[in-house]
């Protein structure tokens, strides 16, 4: 027997290079688009060029006459079998849930909505055939602006519902008994900051466009899809179409990014599913980038009216938020809930005694919105951190000092906020101190002063963002209270193979996050086996039969605990077997460094591998012990996970051209204990990049008729390598109490923190010129206009008291 080296704690915390990389850097990756099946037909989807219209006539006949075209149909042809697109989060009892057919039947409500389908022997023929379909529309009035949509007499997106309001959801700390009354706080306030901030519409823009393959020819209908949520997809396909759940298998093969954009169950998946069942042949649908931009769900798009109350000494006393959230034309699986994920976070890291949040969801003739990295929390953090800067300005106080006056001190955790959340842990002082030091805060302030004094055309701005977020979605009990349609648990299984190797199965569904590596590290430590002996399986409902997938920075925060618990069960199950092999009492054994040894007795013991082989042969098992070491564990968190941090951004703003250049960016995040520092740093890099992109570069724009003007990468300008700076990252480590790994979520943190840091920096550079806001994205034109407006004395901005 080989003696196992001391491996206790050897893997977790180590910068393991990723197991995933080998296939990804050599082109052996299994993207959905790479799948080809015998007899497979290629689908083309005809999409509406109108933002709102009645379909008066469809004839797919001319397409069917084309060589190579095998099948074609319209919404009417499959109306009885296509199912309806589900929304699983009606946030109030009276949330309006409009009909949402995958393939439009009578009416279209946004440009890009699918109206007809052709199936051909190859992709190019399918594309050609779309042009032969005859379709007539009768235009209907279009409504795009949220405030116009709520006005009397506005055109209705869904005439049968009688309203464009989807819901109104309120959280009031006085009513909930979690805090004081905001109206009273406002009446008593020495300072009241009223501001309107605009969260522009964004497009997730994952690099792999969505695609789906369906094979209906086996005992199960198998769907491969570029999705973040294979388990949710299977469940909702079954519930919506009536096909029995056990007859559906969903596989998420390698998936090229998601960022919430693939946290969806899509009309295209439903259409492909219906087409495959109708034809009895495999089908494949591969979306072009333009189609993804047009019809894959968008993100953000909110109007935020914020009232922040404070005393003259800078202490905050209350915050009230009124939101309008654009739903788009339909509801995706969690569209109404996205702003509600922000509802608890407008207090951020500060001690607001009084809190009120009110959000109305609004239908417009635009592509539906839904999750995009951070989902609700970036919006909340942005509004709060912008308002804190405005408060500092109003008081003539340093922007960091004003934050210090009100944030929760490290010795005050756990801390229950007026929004009703209990933050488990944190150390805002430590993260801030480290960030300020790395950033050179005081030196930069001095430089800023001298540039202001000299009237330098290039001004320096310093932007602060101190954030926390609730992630690790989510405690099932709370989800139930919020009327979400599912739980928030996660599951893991461990299979001990006869050779002592290990298969770990996770219900999470990675698409770039490196779970195969991180989960191997965790299992290696817990089971005392080498990192390379662990294989992590995921994303196929046949092997990973149960799970709630990957989003909301939940995989490690929730799924990691399930894995730890499953490993512990294996260790517990092996104990009587090891005792039997060692001819001792199980009570005398301890499991240390991957071995069962008699307590206090050095020397050879029995490894899990020894036990696995003994279980496999089962020639000599102890009485009453099951011949298996395999174990499943499902974990449901009691609370959310609360990472936090301090991000600082210095920008140089050219007052003559409006050009913004990020000069330095420091991100100090506290995500608790880290399993793999390299992966964590990568998540922060990418998250910060996406937050910077919202601040400076990206916006989805519609024209007055509801045509998406930013439907390609030419117009929707995600940043390139030349547009982004190097950022300085560091960490503080406040372990999550009650988490066996001490870890917190990290996937969204960078995106949540960075947007306000950048915009605060831009505004800070221009404050002395009278600028108090620049609408995102802060393009040179917008910055220049803001300067001009301020100079003209016509500066728009919040009313000041």
């Amino acid at each position, binding site marked *: 027997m080989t003696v196992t080296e001391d491996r206790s704690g050897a893997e977790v915390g180590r910068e393991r*290079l990723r197991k995933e990389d*080998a296939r990804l850097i*050599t082109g052996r990756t299994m993207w959905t688009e790479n799948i080809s099946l015998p007899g497979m037909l290629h689908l083309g989807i005809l999409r509406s060029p109108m933002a709102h219209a009645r379909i008066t006539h469809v004839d797919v006949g001319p397409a069917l006459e084309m060589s190579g075209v095998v099948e074609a149909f319209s919404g009417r042809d499959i109306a009885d079998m296509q199912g309806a697109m589900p929304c699983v989060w009606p946030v109030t009892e009276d949330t309006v849930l409009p009909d949402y057919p995958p393939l439009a039947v009578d009416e279209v409500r946004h440009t890009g909505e699918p109206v007809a389908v052709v199936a051909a022997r*190859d992709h190019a023929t399918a594309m050609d055939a779309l042009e032969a379909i005859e379709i007539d529309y009768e235009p209907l009035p279009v409504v795009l602006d949220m405030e116009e949509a709520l006005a009397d007499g506005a055109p209705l997106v869904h005439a049968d519902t009688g309203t464009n309001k989807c819901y109104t959801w309120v959280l009031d700390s006085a009513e909930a008994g979690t805090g004081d009354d905001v109206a009273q706080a406002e009446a008593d306030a020495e300072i009241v900051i009223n501001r309107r901030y605009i969260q522009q519409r964004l497009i997730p823009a994952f*690099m792999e466009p969505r695609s789906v393959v369906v094979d209906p020819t086996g005992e199960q209908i198998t769907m491969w899809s570029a999705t973040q949520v294979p388990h949710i997809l299977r469940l909702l396909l079954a519930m919506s179409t009536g096909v029995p759940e056990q007859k559906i298998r969903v596989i998420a093969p390698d998936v*090229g990014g998601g960022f919430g954009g693939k946290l969806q169950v899509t009309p295209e998946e439903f259409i492909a599913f219906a087409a495959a069942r109708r034809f009895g042949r495999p089908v494949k649908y591969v979306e072009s980038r333009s189609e993804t931009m047009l019809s894959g769900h968008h993100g953000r798009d909110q109007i935020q009216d914020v009232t922040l109350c404070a005393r003259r000494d800078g202490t905050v006393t209350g915050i009230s938020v009124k939101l309008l959230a654009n739903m788009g034309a339909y509801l995706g699986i969690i569209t109404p809930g996205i702003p509600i994920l922000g509802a608890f976070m407008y207090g951020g890291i500060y001690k607001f005694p009084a809190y009120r949040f009110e959000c109305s969801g609004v239908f417009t003739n635009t592509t539906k919105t839904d999750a995009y990295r951070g989902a609700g929390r970036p919006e909340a953090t942005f509004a709060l951190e912008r308002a804190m800067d405005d408060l500092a300005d109003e008081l003539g106080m340093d922007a960091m000092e004003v934050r210090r006056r009100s944030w929760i001190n490290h010795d005050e955790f756990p801390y229950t906020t007026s929004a009703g959340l209990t933050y488990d842990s944190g150390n805002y002082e430590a993260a801030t101190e480290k960030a300020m030091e790395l950033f050179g805060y005081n030196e930069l302030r001095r430089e800023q002063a001298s540039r202001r004094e000299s009237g330098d055309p290039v001004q320096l701005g310093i932007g602060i963002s101190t954030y926390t977020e609730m992630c690790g979605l989510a405690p099932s009990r709370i989800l139930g209270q919020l009327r979400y349609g599912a739980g928030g648990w996660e599951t893991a299984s461990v299979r001990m193979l006869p050779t002592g190797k290990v298969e770990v199965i996770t219900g999470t569904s990675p698409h*770039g996050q490196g779970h195969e590596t991180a989960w191997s590290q965790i299992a290696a430590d817990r089971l005392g086996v080498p990192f390379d002996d662990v294989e992590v399986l995921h994303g196929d409902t046949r092997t990973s039969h149960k799970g709630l997938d990957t989003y909301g920075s939940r995989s490690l925060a929730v799924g990691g605990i399930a894995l730890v618990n499953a490993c512990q069960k294996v260790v517990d199950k092996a104990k009587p077997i090891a005792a039997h092999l060692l001819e001792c009492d199980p009570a005398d054994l301890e499991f240390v460094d991957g071995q069962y040894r008699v307590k206090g007795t050095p020397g050879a013991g029995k490894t899990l591998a020894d036990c696995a082989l003994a279980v496999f042969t089962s020639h000599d098992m102890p009485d009453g012990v099951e011949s298996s070491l395999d174990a499943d564990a499902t974990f449901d968190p009691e609370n959310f996970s609360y990472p936090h941090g301090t991000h600082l951004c210095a920008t140089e703003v050219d007052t003559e051209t409006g050009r913004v250049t990020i000069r330095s960016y420091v991100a100090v995040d506290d995500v608790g204990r880290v399993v793999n520092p390299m992966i964590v740093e*990568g998540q922060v*890099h990418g998250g910060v990049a996406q937050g910077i992109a919202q601040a400076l570069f990206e916006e989805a724009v519609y024209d007055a008729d509801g045509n998406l003007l930013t439907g390609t990468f030419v117009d929707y300008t995600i940043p390139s390598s030349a547009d982004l700076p190097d950022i300085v990252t560091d960490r503080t480590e406040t372990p999550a109490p009650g988490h066996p790994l001490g870890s917190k979520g990290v996937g969204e943190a960078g995106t949540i923190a960075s947007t306000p840091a950048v915009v605060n920096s831009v505004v800070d550079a221009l404050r002395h010129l009278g600028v108090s806001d620049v609408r995102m994205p802060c393009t040179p034109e917008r910055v220049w206009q803001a300067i001009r407006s301020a100079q003209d004395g016509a500066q728009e901005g919040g009313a000041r008291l």
Partner: protein
Amino acid sequence: MTHISMTVDGVRYDDDVEPRTLLVHHLRDKLGKIGTVVGCDTSNCGACTVLMGGNSVKSCTVLAVQASGMDITTVEGLAGRDGEMHPVQQAFHETHALQCGYCTPGMIMSAVDLLAENPDPTDAEIRDGLEGNLCRCTGYQNIVKAVREAGETMRTARHATPETASAHATRDEVTT
């Protein structure tokens, strides 16, 4: 149909293609070179980048017929015959320069071309040189680092003695 002939990753292929066929579709659909992927339809993202005659091209901007007679290298042909990674591939792995990996084949091919033209680029030159390849996951910081480190490795290999200069064997396998 037009007859074309090209060498892809060291293998010669003769085919009849529709004149409108893009090189990327020919590589993927006809030759099974699915390591090269399509990320957009406006030639912005660079995910489909390959080397044609040693120079990087976005294979969605080239017709298959234009590539006739050319020598094409895709990400699948970059590693040595024994499976040894190209220094750029190895550096992407070692510096965590990829997350979802969808942009990676194109990014690696552009980086190979960039280093061929400029063996010792500054970070700014790397950022400018890769401007045509979009990545949504990494924020590019580790990609820049990977290209810088691959450049160092390749320069070292070039200056090494002939016996030790076998392509790219100068870097120890990094495991932690």
